[in-house]
């Protein structure tokens, strides 16, 4: 089989990319290993999606449904393969696709990789203790509750106060599971203030800041979790241990871009841990474009959609014969933890995403000849800023700085 564009993954990024390419009259195959398109959106039944893109508040499944409709409108151009896992991508631009219908090779002129992120599993945290059942990542707990209609336990503790952790605290509570607290190792909440209020305060769920799990107990089902306060280096402080008798531990300790399939094919960025891309969505390998959480973990689906559209557009222009250079590197400087994209090509203005390193009341962002002041910055909230290309001309390297003011 042959196609112009192969899109790997039909989450928010992949669906947007496929539609963008179909609008440019290309033949598109989008492969999704799940039974339906939508990716992580399908399990996020809370609202808060689409405020930027649709200017209204939708739930995850509603947001996905809008794009699913669009996909079907381009049915002639876009071939949607569900239940179809892309197992391998080869240097010669062929991919191996595996589905219950067939196992086959597909030849593409360009690939848009949109495989999303995976969660950091419990094992990787090296928490001492037993290895009982009842320990779930937030995503697994969310899937079991929202899609599979299963309660994950009776009494739970949550680790990680990012938006996902807090949303799960509320969800579990609403379904009659007692949530005894949310543990966060940072001295401030990891997610949006609105979620601290709507998901924790409104339900009287205590938030334990500067704290971490130091031990899990129970040789069959989880029985007890020991939590301790941490110092500035996140080391547990002896003597501060508190014990929670719970049968469930939900971990929300970060997402990792899924990049394994592209090992050896593209360059990765060591800060985002995702695929290093230009503002065109192009990777270090000219025929592989990427978008969404596999490039950097985004806060909002609206951003992901935009980046998917962008990657779809430039991938299409590539198929139509245009060639792009990666451009100049964008590097995080003072007070900046990470930036996306990782390179800038002046075909267009730059939409820059960044995260600060620490909470700041007020800071001046400096990028090339561009400056802008921001207030109330926290690392968990991405800064998004559009920078006109005139401000970035004649640079051989773009440093991104946040000066505290």
């Amino acid at each position, binding site marked *: 089989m042959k196609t112009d564009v192969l899109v790997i993954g039909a989450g928010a990024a992949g669906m947007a990319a496929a539609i963008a390419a179909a609008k440019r009259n290309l033949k598109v195959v989008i492969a999704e*290993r799940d039974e339906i398109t939508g990716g992580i959106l399908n399990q996020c039944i809370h609202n808060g999606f689409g405020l930027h893109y649709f200017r209204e508040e939708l739930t995850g499944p509603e947001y996905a449904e809008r794009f699913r409709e669009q996909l079907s409108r381009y049915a002639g151009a876009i071939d949607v393969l569900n*239940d179809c*896992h892309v*197992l391998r991508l080869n240097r010669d631009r062929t991919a*191996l696709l*595996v*589905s*219950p*219908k*067939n*196992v*086959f*090779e597909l030849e593409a002129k360009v690939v848009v990789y949109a495989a999303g992120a*995976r*969660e950091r*599993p*419990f*094992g*990787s945290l*090296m928490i*001492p*203790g*037993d*290895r*009982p*059942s*009842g320990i779930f*990542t937030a*995503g*697994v707990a969310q*899937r*079991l*509750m929202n*899609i*599979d*209609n*299963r*309660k*994950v*336990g*009776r009494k739970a503790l949550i680790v990680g106060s990012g938006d996902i952790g807090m949303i799960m605290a509320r969800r579990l509570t609403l*379904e009659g599971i007692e949530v005894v607290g949310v543990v966060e190792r940072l001295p401030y909440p990891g997610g949006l203030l609105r979620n601290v209020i709507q998901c924790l305060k409104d339900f009287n769920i205590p938030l334990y800041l500067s704290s971490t799990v*130091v031990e899990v*107990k129970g*040789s*069959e*089902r989880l029985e007890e979790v020991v939590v301790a306060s941490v110092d500035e280096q996140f080391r547990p402080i002896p003597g501060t241990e508190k014990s929670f008798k719970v049968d469930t531990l939900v971990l929300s300790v970060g997402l990792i871009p899924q990049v*394994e399939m592209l*090992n050896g094919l593209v360059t990765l960025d060591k800060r985002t841990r995702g695929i290093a891309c230009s503002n065109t969505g192009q990777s270090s390998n000219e025929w592989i474009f990427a978008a969404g959480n596999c490039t950097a973990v985004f806060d909002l689906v609206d951003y992901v959609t935009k980046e998917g559209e962008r990657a779809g557009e430039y991938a299409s222009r590539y198929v139509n014969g245009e060639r792009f250079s990666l451009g100049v590197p964008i590097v995080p400087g003072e007070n900046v933890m990470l930036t996306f994209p990782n390179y800038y090509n002046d075909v267009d203005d730059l939409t820059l995403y960044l995260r600060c390193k620490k909470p700041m009341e007020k800071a001046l962002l400096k990028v090339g000849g561009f400056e802008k002041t921001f207030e109330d910055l926290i690392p968990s909230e991405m800064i998004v800023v559009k920078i006109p290309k005139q401000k970035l001309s004649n640079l051989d390297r773009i440093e991104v700085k946040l000066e505290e003011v």
Partner: protein
Amino acid sequence: MRVAVIGAGVVGSLIARELCKYDVEVLLIEKNLDVGWGVTKANSAILHAGYDDPVGSVRARFCSVGNAMYTELSRELDFEIKRTGSYVLAFNDEETAVLHKLLVQGEKNGVPNLSIHDRETILSREPRINPEVKMGLWAPTAGITEPWMVAIAAVENALENGLKLFLNEEVVDFEKQGNRIVGVITNKQVHRVDVVINAAGLFADEVAKLAGAEYVPLHPRKGQYILLDKKLGNSVRSVIFPTPTEKSKGILVLPTIDGGLLLGPTAEDLPSDRKNDLTTTNEGIQSVKDFVLKLVPEIDFSLVVKTFAGLRPESPQKDFFIGKSEIVPNFVNAMAMRSPGLTAAPAIAKYIAEEVLQQQMRINLTTKKGFKPERKGIRKYAELSLEEWQRAVKENPSAGRMICFCNEVTEAEIVEAIRRGARTLDGVKFRTRAMFGRCQGDFCMSKILKILERELKTDASQIVLKSPNSWVVDGKVRE
């Protein structure tokens, strides 16, 4: 003639299979929900060459012979082994002297092709090793395997050949006439027997006590491990040992069969009442980290997949305790199986069937006609050629539904594992490697739960991780 084997670890499973070659009725009784979940589940998985067991010890007698038997065994039972070879590294003159002693000891133990390599040779084969290394003892027959898979494969094959397997059944006492055992009493029933073989791992001393037979006291020696992502599996190709001390073979760095990297184990003696203590500790994991960096200086600990612990059944004699009881004439011990018990197991099984039962106990065993020595493992579709896989999917669509993305396991393999006896999440995991990869089941666990629910015609709330009270999900959110 009925023989009951107690304990379905690698030792008991191989003994049971060996006995199935004869016209006897073989019972295998295991208290866990599946086979290979005792000591056999968590160890270094090394097929030791056999140079570090004292000359004349029981360990030495069975280690290199068992090692050699694995080639044929893995072919018959279709489980994987890799002859990676092993290095014992010496960083100073004192340690170099130990290598020479090990070489001589190994030769006396019948270990083939041992040699001592200089720094250049070692670094040319294993470039990640600490360049301060001086010398290394190279043992080409050393290898790696998946220990639980040896037990699973042996039991599956034995079942084909008439074995009666009793899982989730604990031996709690014996019924005796005079000194002889006539019944094995479990928490569920009484089995009439003629011979009992005690392969109860960490608990073999307690089982022997119940029988009134000889035993050596066992206490657990904990070993903690760190498992790293597959990305690192090729950072070393062979098993890398430090120079051993009196107490243990030390903390090692080795590849795993499926391409990961394993670090450990520690050696911590625990009192005999802590035989179920499989907890990891900060100190243990930290000591593994600190130590391995001396062998392989660049290890990326951000790629940790999990940490776990295993328990060696250690005895004061530091040696296996194998043989027929003098007090209870129809009772045989296979206990104190510390390292290299995995390696030695096939040789021990053969010894017990041929020498202990037939010669020493004068039991006349006739070989069974129609014994089928071969067992096929679960077909791994992702390893097939494109054409073969296409054909398989035409016949069975679920062979094209990928469930575990990290380890590339299809629905067909999971269904097959259930058909072969997996009843729990861990049962599926250890038979297929699903949930074993870098995401630790985050993508596939909920799907596997549903497949188990469907195939076992049960409700997900009834499905456990590994033991009767290790429930995974509760009732429904909405009816």
